[in-house]
């Protein structure tokens, strides 16, 4: 700030005769500072727009900022697609829960997929025999990650009344890892829907930074 505002326009130049540049004095410095402040003040009447998120005009009011976990789990939770697959009498309760009276489409679970590759959820509904077990395991293996399993009914949970039977798997957790057990023989659609909501709560707790969602053995 030695020669700063020593131009010919500077006020009070004439007071110093022809000497150029004029000697810098304290009074001048204060005045120059004041001019700068004035200039900044009047040029800063409009606030800068926030530079972090530049939302195009047509997307305004449609954007929310959240964490990756919350977003992923929200999406997974509300679109859990089951495999269209049933083993025994429990499957009729599963079908009934998809019909209009109980209507699991309220939870985004009505899209029963005929292919395990499009599905997230395996509802093992009914008695699983050892002869059927390889097929169930194969369906589970064909499902893409992340995937979940509900054991529906007491037969799928533990073998149920056939626990000591020569042909019945004593619980499908001998074949595939199970996330939610729904008791009942068969469970009413209410119970299955409650099991689905328990699964929703479970999915809500997953995190991409920890174990992957939908565990595998």
């Amino acid at each position, binding site marked *: 700030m030695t020669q700063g505002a020593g131009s010919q326009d500077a006020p009070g130049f004439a007071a110093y005769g022809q000497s150029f540049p004029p000697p810098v004095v304290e009074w001048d410095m204060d005045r120059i500072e004041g001019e700068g402040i004035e200039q900044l003040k009047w040029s800063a009447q409009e606030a800068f727009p926030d530079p972090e998120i530049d939302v195009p005009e047509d997307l305004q009011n449609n954007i929310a900022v959240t964490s990756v976990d919350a977003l992923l789990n929200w999406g997974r939770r509300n679109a859990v697609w089951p495999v269209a697959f049933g083993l025994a009498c429990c499957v009729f309760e599963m079908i009934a829960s998809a019909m209009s009276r109980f209507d699991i489409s309220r939870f985004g679970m009505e899209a029963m997929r005929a292919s395990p590759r499009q599905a997230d959820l395996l509802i093992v509904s009914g008695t699983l025999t*050892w*002869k059927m077990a390889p097929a169930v395991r194969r369906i589970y293996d064909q499902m893409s990650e992340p995937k979940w399993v509900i054991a529906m009914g007491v037969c799928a949970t533990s*073998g149920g009344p056939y*626990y*000591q*039977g*020569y*042909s019945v798997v*004593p619980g499908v957790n001998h074949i595939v890892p199970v996330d939610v057990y729904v008791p009942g023989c068969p469970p009413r659609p209410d119970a299955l829907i409650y099991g689905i909501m328990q699964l929703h709560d479970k999915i809500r707790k997953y995190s991409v930074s920890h174990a992957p969602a939908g565990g595998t053995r």
Partner: protein
Amino acid sequence: MTTAVTGNELADTVQRRFPEAVEEASEGALRVAPDAIADVCRFLREDALQDFDLLSSLTAVDYVEYFEIVYHLTSIARNASVVLKARVYGREAPALPSVVGVWQGADLQEREAFDLMGVTFTGHPNLKRMLTWEGFQGYPLRRDYLEPPLPYTWPQGG
């Protein structure tokens, strides 16, 4: 209502055709010799007066001393039914002729009886395990069947 033909009513007819075949005739059923069962069945199906064209059921019962094979025959045209029985002795290899040549529907039912009871039907075109799997040990519906001990079974067997 379907007429239930008793064993007594049918005994004379069968006896005239197969003198050695009838072992016992009762109100409920006609018991014939196991070796003659296929011939008797063919006669009952093809004879115009009998006309039992449907095998409703074929099953086996374990009486420990012997196995009894039970045939429920139905005539659709006559709206009549009758029960045939045949006893086979011995637990090692009980065997009797197959009736698949008479009724195609006997195929799966004989396989089921073979699978669960261990009764061999000679002449069956495809006699192998159906409800259990190849390599299954024993015949699970027999009275003396015990499941081999596994981690989830009771110590005394299933």
